[in-house]
């Protein structure tokens, strides 16, 4: 019964596009033919508080929530949240902190969420084309270029560090 499920937590503060990023990740995995579940708590999220979302994908996903200590990856958009969510990571899991990409290289700082997704994408076996489709489906056309370059920045940074 050991079905492999990939567990990714995205975290940050309200207004940083955490939920948007999790929508993109879930959609990319969905477009790649995986079973996907995504869980989040929004409602208070616009008031600047902590936001975390769980995205799980694989052959069959049961619970929508990632059990504590079982996250394969955690992507964090806000420095203040890094230590808050670190206990959720599994032993040997990877935490991608907001300083992983050089913000100065971003054409628009608001695309940090997508840049960090780019870094995450390096570790996941989802084809790049699925990511591009998901990003374009989630954002208005005028934001496609800036987010495509942010995604590439994150993906290339991750590739260079390995």
């Amino acid at each position, binding site marked *: 019964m050991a079905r492999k499920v990939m567990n990714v937590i995205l975290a940050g503060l309200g207004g940083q596009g955490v939920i948007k990023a999790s929508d993109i990740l879930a959609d990319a995995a969905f477009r790649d033919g995986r079973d996907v579940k995504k*869980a989040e708590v929004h*409602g208070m999220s*616009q008031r600047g*508080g902590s936001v975390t979302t769980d995205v799980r994908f694989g052959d069959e996903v049961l*619970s*929508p*929530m990632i*059990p504590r200590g079982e996250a394969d990856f955690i992507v964090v958009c806000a420095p203040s949240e890094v230590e*808050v*969510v670190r206990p959720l990571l599994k032993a040997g899991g990877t935490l991608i902190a907001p300083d992983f990409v050089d913000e100065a290289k971003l054409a628009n700082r608001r695309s940090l969420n997508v840049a960090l997704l780019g870094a995450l994408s390096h570790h996941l076996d989802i084809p790049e084309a699925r990511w591009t489709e998901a990003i374009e489906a989630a954002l208005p056309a005028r934001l496609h270029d800036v987010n495509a370059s942010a995604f590439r920045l994150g993906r290339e940074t991750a590739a260079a560090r390995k």
Partner: protein
Amino acid sequence: MDRKLLSGDEAVAAAAQDAGVHLGTGYPGTPSTEILETFSALGGRAQWAPNEKVALEVGLGAAYGGARVLVTMKHVGVNVAADPLFTAAYTGVTGALVLVSADDPGLASSQNEQDNRHYAKAAGLPMLEPSDSQEAYDLARAAWELSARWGIPVMLRMTTRVCHGKSIVVRRAPEAPKAPAFVRDIQGRVMIPAYAGPAHRKLRRKLDEILAWGEASPLVVERKGSGKLGIVTAGVTARHAREAAPDASLLELKLLHPLPIERIRAFAKTVERCFVVEEGDPILADAVRAAGIPVESKAPEFRFGELTVGRVRRILAHDTTPEAAPPRGKPPQLCDACPYHPVYSALKKLDCIVAGDIGCYTLGVLPPYQGLDACVAMGASLGVGLGLRHVLPEQDAKRVVSIIGDSTFVHTGVNGLIEMIYNPPKTGHVLIILDNGTTAMTGQQEHPGTGRTLAHDATGKFSLEGFARAAGVKNVDVVDPVKDPPAFLALLGERLSKPELTVIIARRPCILAAADIRQYEQANAAKCSAAVEG
């Protein structure tokens, strides 16, 4: 049909469209809000009511008229709608009516974690509960079918994780229900005692029939496991349970009421240990034990908060050692540019006793203001403030202020205002309506005071100041608190010093909604002038 990644709320909206729902109505409330918004975006006829009681009554009228109806609200909204709900169970419906109750175990965005499964039993209504978006779609469709077949309102209970979680949904072929038409049924719908007595018996007969059908229906799903452990469960908890105990046999109830107890009895006999795993109150465990079926169930501490895979593992192991605290991040707060800052600042300077209400502004209770002394229920600021004024010594009574948001005032604050006129405290009273022109907390929905419909089109506008004046409030002030904070402070101080009734409307658009509001106004003005020229 297409596969789509949808939230549970979106899935219910899709089901409403495919079931041919004629009218959707409700009041915004996390986590239910997106259902009607999505139904409207899909082209369905959806509207916000001033509160949940009115929403259900409008829905009931439509269903008496033969329509298929969707009514949505959060769990506490069902309390507001409970009065018509209990008697609607007696009258039944001619078309079909599904009431979505979106519960919030774990209090993601609510004032309590009440378990609305109690309502199904108390009112005598069928209740279904999905565990993910596909089931939200399938069970919503099933709920309208059930409602139409037995002529009874059906409750669809959802929880935050199912409402806001996303998973894959495949839709089924749409159906076209009969067009609404009026058929007179005086004895069936006029609940005077002579007719209500027989209606009660009729309700119980329907429930007996639904139970007989339900016991054999696909709304009870059995998964065979090793036979050592059997789990009886429902909702998203069923998904946690499958993950926590992959080898266990599982009886998953999608029909919560009437409870298919004979299926549970038969299942329990097939396993060595039978365990009831449920989120919230021990409703299922109590019912199963009352039927003489021996089962294990969770320790009392698991009544609180949401269940997770980890907590289900602990429940099954009867592990009651202290649980690790969940990560404590940054709490939400009033936006930096929120127009309510000067109001809270003034209340603090004047050392007011503040009866508060439900909305973003409830966040004023947090530092730096700690600006609320009570917050109980929608509209309660009026009554609670008046009660304090009635009994406190004069020097303290004069410090009492009620504050309420615009949408909340329209919801149930109006009743409190009538009380204020009818039973005025000796020291008078001051009500501040925080009017930011939107239902901000739930994600900026329209309400009767904005003069725009759910879809943001122009419609009749309920005037807050007009209502207060017409009701007989002596002082009605409309001010922008941000424009001149010292003037707001001076006005509040002056009104508090007099034994008179005052309503101060602090009007300034929510900073998150302001740009959208301007856009809606411009679009509506353009439509209006086009109509004049045309």
